[in-house]
């Protein structure tokens, strides 16, 4: 469990980092908190020629509010997000989800951008970002582009990131006044990636956004399920057709120890629990 040999650079500025990524293309990998990347290196699942350590780019470490938009820098650490009054005030869904992300030691190092880039389908933050309708700002030496979170996650550990590109920040609309939210997941042990999870936001003026984690190859916005719950009366109980809607929205994989069928069943249970509990949480 020793890393393969690689070169290491620690650029001092964003421009330098992007140039470096441009120069080395496919053979370079950005290093953020290292909480996912270093494990894959130790297991020799990846062997980059050069690690571009971006943790010195303090310009990517900020959380700011601009009007109704919250900007979260890619290098914002999980702990920072968890403790941020801005986040708690404007996008409390994140605050609710963060205690489920790993453990204290990992939250002290792991970064928001790293979690989005790693794109684990069972990760909490990508699901929350999709639920909140956020946008990612990506940058390369060629310039910047923006992409909706839903389009950014393209598959199992796959995103729309291109070689040479960094996630710079996410722009997240503040939750609408009167909106309600809830987050819950079923993980075997506290801090594990869950078997299934649900990030839910309900706003008075728009359709519920239900994003399931661990139930597809990416965080999955469940539109059929949200549609069939339109106008439902609470508490939900044995909603006919809910299981079918979930089966339409979700596409869990059979994994050792947990079949797709079991995951769907867990997702169903979570739906009732999260949405019924959500009614009890005071609206924003």
């Amino acid at each position, binding site marked *: *469990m020793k890393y*393969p040999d690689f070169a290491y650079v620690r650029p001092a500025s964003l421009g330098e980092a992007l140039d470096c990524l441009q120069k080395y293309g496919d053979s370079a990998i950005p290093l953020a908190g290292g909480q996912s990347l270093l494990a894959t290196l130790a297991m020799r699942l990846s062997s980059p020629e050069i690690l571009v350590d971006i943790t010195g780019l303090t310009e990517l470490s900020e959380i700011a509010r601009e009007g109704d938009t919250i900007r979260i820098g890619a290098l914002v650490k999980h702990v920072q997000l968890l403790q941020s009054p801005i986040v708690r005030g404007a996008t409390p869904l994140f605050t609710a989800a963060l205690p489920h992300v790993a453990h204290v030691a990992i939250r002290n190092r792991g970064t928001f951008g790293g979690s989005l880039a790693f794109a684990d389908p069972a990760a909490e933050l990508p699901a929350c970002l999709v639920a909140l309708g956020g946008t990612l700002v990506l940058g390369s030496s060629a310039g910047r582009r923006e992409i909706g979170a839903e389009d950014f996650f393209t598959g199992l550990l796959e995103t729309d990131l291109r070689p040479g590109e960094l996630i710079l920040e996410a722009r997240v609309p503040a939750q609408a006044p009167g909106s309600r939210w809830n987050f819950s997941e079923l993980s*075997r042990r506290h801090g594990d990636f869950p078997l299934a999870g649900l990030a839910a936001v309900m706003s008075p003026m728009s359709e519920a956004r239900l994003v399931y984690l661990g139930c597809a190859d990416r965080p999955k916005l469940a539109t059929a399920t949200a549609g069939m719950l339109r106008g439902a009366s609470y508490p939900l109980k044995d909603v006919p057709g809910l299981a079918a809607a979930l089966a339409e929205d979700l596409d869990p994989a059979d994994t*050792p120890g947990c079949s797709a069928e079991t995951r769907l*069943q867990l997702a169903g249970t979570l739906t009732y629990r999260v949405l019924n509990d959500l009614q009890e949480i005071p609206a924003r």
Partner: protein
Amino acid sequence: MSATVKDDAVIGKGFPRKELQRLLRGRGRYVADIKLPRMLHLAFVRSPHPHARIVDIQTAEALASPGVVGVYIGKEFTDSEPLVGIALHRRGHKSAPQYPMAVDRAVWQGQPVAAVVAETRAEAEDAAELVQVEWEELPAITSGEEAVAPDAKAIHPEIGDNLAFEHTISVNDPEKTLAQSHIVVEQSFRFERQTGLPLETRGMIADWNPGDESLTVHYAHQSPFQMQEIFSRHLGIPPLKIRVIAPDVGGGFGIKLNIYGEDLAVVMIARRLGRPVKFISDRLESLVSDAHARDHDIVAKMGVSAEGRITSMWLDDLGAVGAYGMPFRFNVAEGMMCITMAGACYDFSSYWGRTRSVYVNKNLVGMYRGVGIPLACIVTEVLADKAARQLGMDPADFRRLNHRRKEDLPCVTPNGSQLDTVSFEECFEKVLKLMDYDALRKEQADLRKRGILRGIGLASFVEATSYGPPYYGPSQASISTQDGCTLRLEPAGVVRCITSLTDQGQGTLTGIAQIVAEAVGLSFDQVEVMGNDSAISPYGGGAWASRGMAVGGEAALNAGRALKQNIIALAAAITQNLPEALDIKAGEIVNKESGAAVLSVAELGRIAYFRQDTLPKDADVQLSVTRSFADNHKHYYMANGIQASYVEVDEATGFIKLLGHWAVDDCGRIINPLQVDEQVRGGVVQGIGAVLYEEFMYGPGGGLQNGSLVDYLIPAASEMPDIHVAHVETPERTTQLGAKGIGEAGLIGAMGALWVSVNDALQPLGATVAHQPFTPERVLLAIKAAKAGR
């Protein structure tokens, strides 16, 4: 703390482990911390397949890789005496010979096939990736059932078939007794594979000195003497030229008692190179190559009379023990303990049991905490609950009725377990009180009305501790079941103690210090203990089977008493007293009657070592003594206990929440209550891990699917319940010290209690989960099956 502890007593007090501060300050010295001059690092190439022929191995590229000093393949090591893991006292037990690395064929996934030695571990790993093995995959035998199927191909054709060992016990007409019982309950059980997972992985440095042809091995092991014997026997090195030192060791649980092919390979390579070679197993390797455990299918029945008395038990066990017999430590042990200890706590006389150990294309099964006793406990307790329920009896009443009574002891159970100082009834009544059983039952009933599924589980168990000469002797494995202790009075009046025991974190050496201090008449901090070194201490065993305190403790007690006698004799000569008039208390030699100080032990030490000129001419100064102890005819010291578990099962998710856990143990005399309680708690957590989390999962072709801690789950602190520990103290009758073991009790009872409590919770649904670990999916499937069956 024990009620019997006197103020000046040292035994019975909860001293923290002596090494704790050192370890907590990061000043431990584990094998990985040791750096020897000119030391090299070794990495193994392992078989990725459960069963495959080695067509060709190319090593040239690896050899040319930076830093590489040597690359070795299996067939270069066939000049060693192969390991053959059979117990000679088990008739018919067979195993194919095992070489340090696979030669023509790999028979389990993770088996070493090549070794790369380089200046650093990273370089060795780089080069290991360049070793090119051409494999021809062969069909694998992946389960016990497959192994014994009539058309099964023998993994080792030279031994005929895959049956390693079979043993049947049949006592007092079991068929007829069962047939005549009022009810017969039956259950099948499945236990998945797991391992012991010590925090520190296995590791060793082999240091061959060509100058005097001697071998020093720094080895994270539980039994340095065993390894000295193994290296000598298999590599032809004279025992006097071998020294095995276990430095600080971070947990063993049996994993570091077993013998691995790698052990021999590392030493042989160090000898060839004439340089120290370090091998530290990484976590990925440790999961595939540390001895595995369990992997049993069991079907069992219990016959019960109309009044609720157990009449008979029937138990058929099939254990898939891996691809070879585990050398010295025997893969028959899980099955044998299971069938000989089932039902041991309950009074019945008719029994049928069979165990079969069979070879499969998986890693070897070896010793792991509890060995087969947890299986015996689980099977018995699950059947007991089932029977009680069927008869409409409260499970506690059922146990109260059936526990073996004190007045019937000593006795031998129908399946051959020897019970003497066990205390089933006392432990049982104590745990009911501790947990407030009746209140919990009431709470359970109230919550059931609201659809909340809570379960209560009780599990009585025995723990055969300190397996002795009658067990290991006839196996002819050269395993020493005696232990020794050397004491040396220093001039300052303090004592150095050298024991043949080893300590992997249990606090054994701290307990030994307490025994010595009390036996000599010193305070706790006037004794320093060391162990873990085959060249220094008296010959002995080490750590396994919860034996340290009972066996090595007795040796320490005897040594302490002998030293005290010698000190007193000398003090009497110096002070012109009668020896009978003197005693030693807290480092002072005192007048026995008046308590008046006569001479300090420090002053005596000064005179004895530096002023012999002041002593009488014929004064015999013997201030170093050695005593050894073995209970020549004793199979084991049978300890016992009971545990209780309270859980809630979420019907919709299959998740299990642990609400409370209680353990009452009788390990005889308690030397250090703090260490004993922590042994119990740690064991409970490991037992919970087995029942809820730990499982090696294999795909259809027998390939391991979860070889890292990402998905081989172990218990974590957040999920653990409060664990309440209490004791009953019934001293062992045959020793002076009266201690029995406690190392495995926590795990054994926890597994039993949790199996029962989860199934108790599922009762309203009519569901039974009998496939360990109880994952959410297995619980949901059990519920689904029950609903479909209705």
